[in-house]
């Protein structure tokens, strides 16, 4: 069905310049410089308390920055009140007006700006979010997913320059969340407005966003396309928070054409120079669990000199259908994670078996040696002693 675009208007870049927010006891956002390109789906990803929501609230005008400026295009909006800004928010728990029906909730912004005929735009917007039949219901009578769409419609109808989404899918169950991720992405493509999306869910961020900024302790750790930062993490925090990583500390023993050679626990690894985030001699070697090939030592034969190789013993294997997740204890006692796709039945490696691990140098990355290898690992998992990020046991055992 061909639909006329519901939202048509100028869209401009959003600039944050030296944006800082200090609360009494802590600095929530620390001198943030950021340009969010017009029309992009931008995700601010980070754990709770990293300052992402505070950043969003400052853009919305609901929080006053301690220092810095917010510009939309060339217009400085830092001093404008929330209702004066060309910015709308989809709130975490939707914050729909319980005393107004769905139609009036969606019409709220238009009416406040004195738009005379709201019927047509509201109906178009309800059609966009597929809630035409619900126009006269009250928010309390709608399901979580429907309320979420109303919240999006209520914000979008105002054709803001920037739409802010604060953990918009947090209250939904997993299945619905997947569905809404696709839905939000569709709406964004359709309307072409800049979406700034705040979330702690890395999968959600990667599914929807064109650009992800990983935030930690009020600063941006790394920014780029989901695939780029996933493949090229520059800090241990990003390596662990965005997906999972095996990390082991080592030191540079040589530099050859395009590669840095690092020795860790007596094993040498080759890393492409462009994938090493430091020029120092202390380097953390990292590799994603799914990049590692696992073979039973008995069937592995001679290691391929072109690949990074090591050996170990399987200490845990869990079959998830799509893949098998192994924990492999290395000679120096660190447990590495390996995800192996279930391609054929004779690939299966048994618990307790000696294995040879190998991975392509181009899949290997190097981080600064001073990094905390547990940064970005879920604290509760650390306390349970689970090795999910992979890097922690090297601190406990190998360090």
């Amino acid at each position, binding site marked *: 069905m061909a639909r006329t675009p519901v939202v048509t208007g100028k869209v401009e870049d959003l600039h944050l310049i030296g944006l800082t927010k200090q609360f009494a006891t802590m600095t929530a956002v620390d001198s943030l410089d950021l340009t969010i390109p017009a029309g992009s789906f931008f995700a601010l990803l980070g754990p709770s308390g990293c300052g992402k929501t505070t950043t969003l609230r400052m853009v919305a005008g609901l929080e006053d920055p301690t220092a810095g400026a917010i510009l939309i295009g060339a217009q400085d909006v830092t001093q404008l009140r929330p*209702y004066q800004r060309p*910015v709308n928010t989809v709130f975490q728990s939707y914050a729909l007006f319980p*005393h107004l029906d769905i139609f009036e909730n969606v019409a709220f912004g238009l009416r406040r700006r004195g738009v005379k005929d709201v019927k047509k735009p509201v109906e178009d917007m309800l059609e966009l979010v597929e809630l035409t039949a619900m126009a006269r219901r009250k928010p309390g009578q709608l399901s979580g997913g429907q309320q979420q769409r109303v919240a999006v419609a209520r914000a979008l109808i105002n054709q803001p320059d920037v739409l802010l989404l604060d953990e918009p899918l947090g209250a939904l169950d997993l299945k619905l969340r997947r569905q809404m991720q696709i839905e939000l992405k569709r709406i964004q493509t359709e309307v072409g407005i800049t979406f700034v999306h705040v979330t702690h869910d890395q999968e959600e961020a990667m599914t929807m966003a064109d650009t992800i900024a990983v935030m930690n302790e009020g600063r941006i750790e790394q920014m780029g396309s989901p695939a780029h930062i996933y493949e090229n993490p520059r800090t241990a925090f990003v390596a662990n928070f965005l997906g999972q990583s095996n990390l082991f500390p080592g030191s540079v023993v040589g530099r050859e054409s395009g590669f840095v050679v690092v020795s860790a626990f007596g094993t040498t690894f080759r890393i492409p120079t462009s994938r090493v985030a430091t020029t120092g001699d202390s380097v953390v070697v990292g590799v994603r669990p799914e990049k590692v090939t696992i073979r039973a030592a008995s069937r592995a034969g001679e290691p391929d000199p072109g690949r990074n190789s090591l050996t170990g013993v399987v200490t845990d294997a869990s079959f998830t259908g799509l893949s098998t997740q192994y924990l492999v204890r290395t000679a120096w006692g660190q447990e590495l994670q390996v995800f192996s796709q279930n391609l054929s039945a004779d690939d299966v490696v048994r618990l307790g078996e000696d294995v040879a691990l190998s991975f392509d140098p181009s899949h290997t990355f190097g981080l600064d040696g001073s990094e905390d290898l547990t940064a970005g690992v879920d604290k509760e998992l650390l306390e349970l002693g689970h090795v999910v990020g992979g890097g922690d046991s090297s601190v406990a055992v190998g360090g």
Partner: protein
Amino acid sequence: MPAIVPTTTTTGSVEATVRRSKRSTPYVLLLPGLGWLAFFFVVPLFASLATSLQVPIEAGNPDGGFTQAFEISNYTQAIAQYWPQFVRSYVFAGLATILALAIAYPLAYFIAFKAGKYRNIMLVLVVAPFFCSFLIRTYAWKTILADQSPVTQFLNFLHLLPDDRILNTPLAVITGIAYNFLPFMTLPLYAALERIDFRLIEAGNDLYGSPWTTFRKVTFPLSLPGVVAGTLLTFIPAVGDFINAQLLGSIKDKMIGNVIDSQFRIVRDYPTASALSFMLMVSVLAIVFVYIRRAGTEDLV
């Protein structure tokens, strides 16, 4: 207990007994309240209804006792004679309610949204007048509003008083009522405002509502249950109040409560007093019913 298929008759009857006692629990809990209501409301209500239709045994002599005659004209005579006091009661109570609302709403708003750590102290201060008797507080207002009091002199200095005085004028009665029922207005308003999710107000601001517009379109509608509860808790007792008119008003400011009081205690014309009480109750009920329907609170969360 048809749903139960007992394995033996013994267990079946035990289960049935347990279920029966479970079902009766709510009624047992209601019993004291219902008993109280029956003895101190329903019985007096009917006694009063019966009295309102009686006539004196000896015409013109209330001390000679009364007899039941189902005399409907008691009502028409009472209303013909005392309608000005009826009207005055409603006007005074209505104005006092509006005044109390105007004072209590900003106060409740402040306590709910701005008071921070002082919130509990402020709530205690709202209730604090209850530590002192209603009567004594009203007497204190006699002093506060007296002709030589600083309040009166200051307002006179500004030429704000049409009669050059407050005490013994309708103004004194209305402000007295508003003062006395202020906590009843403030507390429900506070409860309603405090429940409002602050993110709704932020959403209003985010959607181009200035603070004032957001108040009109979001905060106030969401506080309506509190407004309705507060105005009812003020208006209903205020209509029947006679202390304020007695102590703060002149002879010309008598309310229906004063008439009923004197009919019972001084004139001892019990049928007229009962008829007036009955009409007062029915008319208040009618007004409350219409008001709640108009306010449409059943649509609110």
